[in-house]
């Protein structure tokens, strides 16, 4: 009597259940070498790697966030939620969190609006007569606008830091050259009012090219006939973009929003390079920067882990928010691109 027979007998004894699922017994796989080795290599191995290198560090981080570990000794005490309590009452961290949230709101929104505008112009923004096409020389603009993405973020940040230099910077040089003498030695990154906006500008400048390319690819996936139909229905360029193009690529926009949000909540490279000290009055300090400082300069790994946990939770909340907004505005029954 084989194993299958035995299970059949059990199933027969259960009766009604077997009748409901008549093909169950015959469809059960045999544990052949082929099947087992396939499962081990393609399911077991990736799962093990994922568990060991992704899930376990998460759990570890959560655990360390409840300790007073310094990071440089083997000893630590479990102090429960003490670190989190301390975080809430830490004005510098709350400031950093505020800045991070500001960046996470402004950067994705502005980047996506600019990227969508450019992508639409390049793909369907051309003459309203004749075939659907982009503006003149659109392929040139497409290549040029992708350049920033090819440059490493740290290099972008350093270039712009030089540009914003109060006395030797290109920006102030141009502005004073144009006659705006009040910018003679204006410290863009050194003033509370401009430091954060300027930082956001640099992040957006670096990101627009890539997201534009992403949207261009998405718009190219919209059948030309659909756009032509809209055109004949009387829709101009702007109307076509708003009523046809954007609804049809909303999945891509949502994905871009989440990616950008995650990047903006981190933003470590940019802020660290533009203002290593956290900016005037900590006005450009972000969570990841404060985390780095706490862990490696102040030697409080337990406390820094708590910051990491908060950062992770905020990132997850952000993603959830994007999904909910998309769902609530009618994205739930999209996807049927007939």
């Amino acid at each position, binding site marked *: 009597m084989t194993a299958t027979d035995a299970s059949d007998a059990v199933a027969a004894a259960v009766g009604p259940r077997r009748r409901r699922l008549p093909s169950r017994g015959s469809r059960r796989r045999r544990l052949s070498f082929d099947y087992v080795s396939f499962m081990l290599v393609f399911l077991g191995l990736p799962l093990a790697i994922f568990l060991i290198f992704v899930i376990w560090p998460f759990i570890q981080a959560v655990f360390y966030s409840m300790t007073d570990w310094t990071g440089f000794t083997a000893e630590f005490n479990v102090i429960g939620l003490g670190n989190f309590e301390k975080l809430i009452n830490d004005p510098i961290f709350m400031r950093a969190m505020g800045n991070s949230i500001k960046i996470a709101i402004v950067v994705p929104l502005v980047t996506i609006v600019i990227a969508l505008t450019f992508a639409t112009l390049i793909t369907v923004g051309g003459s*309203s*007569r*004749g*075939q*659907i096409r982009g503006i003149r020389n659109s392929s040139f603009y497409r290549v040029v606008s992708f350049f920033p993405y090819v440059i490493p973020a740290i290099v972008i940040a350093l270039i712009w830091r030089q540009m914003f230099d109060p006395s030797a910077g290109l920006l102030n040089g141009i502005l004073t050259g144009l006659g705006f003498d009040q910018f003679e030695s204006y410290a863009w990154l050194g003033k509370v009012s401009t430091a954060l906006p300027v930082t956001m500008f640099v992040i957006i400048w670096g990101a627009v090219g890539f997201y534009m390319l992403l949207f261009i690819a998405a718009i190219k996936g919209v*059948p030309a*006939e*659909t756009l*032509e*139909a*809209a*055109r*004949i*229905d*009387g*829709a*101009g360029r702007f*109307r076509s973009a708003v*009523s*046809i193009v954007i*609804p*049809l690529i909303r999945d891509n926009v949502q994905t871009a929003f989440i990616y950008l949000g995650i990047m903006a909540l981190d933003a470590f490279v940019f802020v660290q390079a533009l203002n290593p000290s956290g900016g005037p009055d900590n006005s450009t300090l972000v969570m990841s920067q404060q985390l780095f400082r706490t862990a490696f300069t102040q030697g409080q790994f337990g406390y820094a882990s708590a910051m990491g946990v908060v950062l992770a939770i905020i990132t997850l909340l952000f993603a959830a928010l994007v999904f909910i907004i998309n769902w609530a505005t009618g994205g739930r*029954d*999209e996807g*049927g*691109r*007939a």
Partner: protein
Amino acid sequence: MASVTYDQATRVYPGQERPAVDALNLEVADGEFLVLVGPSGCGKSTSLRMLAGLEDVNSGRILIGDRDVTDVQPKDRDIAMVFQNYALYPHMSVADNMGFALKIAGTPKAQIRERVEEAAKILDLTEYLDRKPKALSGGQRQRVAMGRAIVRQPQVFLMDEPLSNLDAKLRVQTRTQIASLQRRLGVTTVYVTHDQTEALTMGDRIAVLKDGLLQQVGTPREMYDTPANVFVAGFIGSPAMNLGSFAVADGKANLGDTHIPLTRTTIDALTEEDKGEITLGFRPESLDVATEGEEGAFAINVNLVEELGSDAFVYGQLAAREVAEHVTSGAGEAQLIARVDPRRPPMKGDKIWVKVRAGEAHVFSSATGLRLPA
């Protein structure tokens, strides 16, 4: 309502020498149903898209009514178009799809609703108004695309092979629906198809194009009875017309042992360039079964018999092997098609004798391909 005029309209695609549409002159009367037909790549879709404004016009003019629309944007041409793949907006409901144009035009909501419902009733779509296109069948989507055009109440309907994505049965059904709908609405319609049956059954007039050049315009009857050249003769009609190149001698067209008498006018119309040859065309139904030795009769080896109930068609080759390749069916392979009595069809492998019924042969110049007087 308005007429449509192509005046020497030409379209050359960038980077190409030969125009896709070459100096097209065509007039579509007010309320007329004109079918543009031709093989793929003949420029029929391009012509339609030029009228829609979706394709530039390199030279010449296009008029809708008395208005020159050559440089007018598609949205201002007051036309509606039905696309091959329907081009419905997938994120909108059927009602929104149909009402989109009116919404853009700023029509009051109540009026949009009313007109959409009216069109939906005509097209039997009322119960689907709240559905998204992906929840519809191919035939229903096609009707929504039609509805979107009707709701506009445009001056001209443009249809670009709207039936080619439907299955055979639905295509025949929808064909008659569209034709009768057009007659009822009385809107000038330009319809593109590659299917000559659709052209013959639907159009008030047919325009045949080939390689960007207009070959002939006329009513279905004219196209069938008096094709202007060899191409039209071979293209219109199903099964296709048999076309053979014959040598002219003694007032007869000769091919092997076959001798078909020609009229005086035909022989007089022949020129030097024809080099004593003539192209003869005869439709499958113009052949009568004859007996051996009759004047003008020729033998066919039967390869295949297609029985359709009402008709039976014999597919074969001239029995005279050395000249068999001189007779083709349409522009196709060397074969000869004859209609025979469906109650007494020959068998495969038989040899039958047929002759062309007097006065039903079409004669064409072998040099120019143009029709000669019979």
